[in-house]
């Protein structure tokens, strides 16, 4: 890792840190499709929040191919794959006690291909 110095810090801040990858990987899903979040409970790092595991949603948009954090954090590779914004209705997530009382509400969560199955 290069040393962070007064000369390179501005450049490093400006260049940023996109997780986007150039790999050509086909998407498993497309907008409008229904998906269910796998009930995965790994001991290591994951970005599938516990509150959404096992819930059904609809692919809202495809963000493209990015690094998969679960394998990247474990040191077993970037596993390039598509990330989607998935829409979950409030009632699907919170049940009849949905805390969006009396109105339409939804949660949009960014999820990777490996977290999802076709519903």
């Amino acid at each position, binding site marked *: 890792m290069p040393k962070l110095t007064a000369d390179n810090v501005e450049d490093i801040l400006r260049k940023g840190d*996109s997780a986007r990858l150039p790999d050509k990987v086909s998407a498993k899903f497309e907008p409008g499709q229904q998906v269910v979040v796998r009930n995965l409970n790994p001991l290591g790092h994951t970005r599938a929040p516990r509150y959404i595991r096992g819930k059904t949603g609809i692919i809202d948009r495809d963000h493209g191919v990015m690094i998969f954090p679960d394998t990247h954090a474990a040191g077993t590779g970037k596993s390039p794959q598509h990330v989607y914004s998935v829409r979950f209705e409030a009632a699907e997530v919170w049940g009849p006690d949905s805390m969006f009382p009396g109105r339409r*509400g939804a949660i949009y969560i*960014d999820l990777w291909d490996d977290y999802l199955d076709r519903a």
Partner: protein
Amino acid sequence: MPSEHSHDHDHSEVPSDLALRVKALESLLVEKGLVDPAALEILIDTYETKVGPRNGAKVVAHAWSDPDYKARLLADGSKAIAEFGFDGRQGKDIVVVENTEQVHNMVVCTLCSCYPWPVLGLPPVWYKASPYRARAVRDPVGVLKDFGVTLPEDVEIRVWDSTAELRYLVLPQRPAGTEGLSEADLAELVTRDSMIGTGLAKQPGAGGTP
């Protein structure tokens, strides 16, 4: 923090555990030759004085004034934001979501504190704290109420949980009665919270809020 640690004493006399941890980390990074202290000064100055929510306010005011720019912003947030020269860490893949008469958007990171730095600067303390992170997805109506915002019942609420490397910016609704305002005057109405979705843009002549 150990449970026997009581809080009935004044922490201003002794640095807090967090401050001590930060100091220890800083010493380690400097002693191991990974970071030059001068670089840290520039880094802190960048996010204290150069990058902050005024950047986002300029983007929003321009989107309110120029329909073509708004279309570009909603189609590719990062690219349109870079037209202002705002770019960099925690902002390579910004998605802009638009508030309308029918839809109110609100942003959270339930896993940590993901936030679009180039347009909003560093996140406020409450954004990183557990109560906001836990409640925003479960009780957004209550959270909005705490922020002094009540929305009509027919407005759909969409909460965006930034679990990946995308960063979300809310394009607030342009307040009514601002038709004649310049872009600079419009930018004054755009608050930080209105771009997180925990607030609305100010009415002309209203007082200051975050």
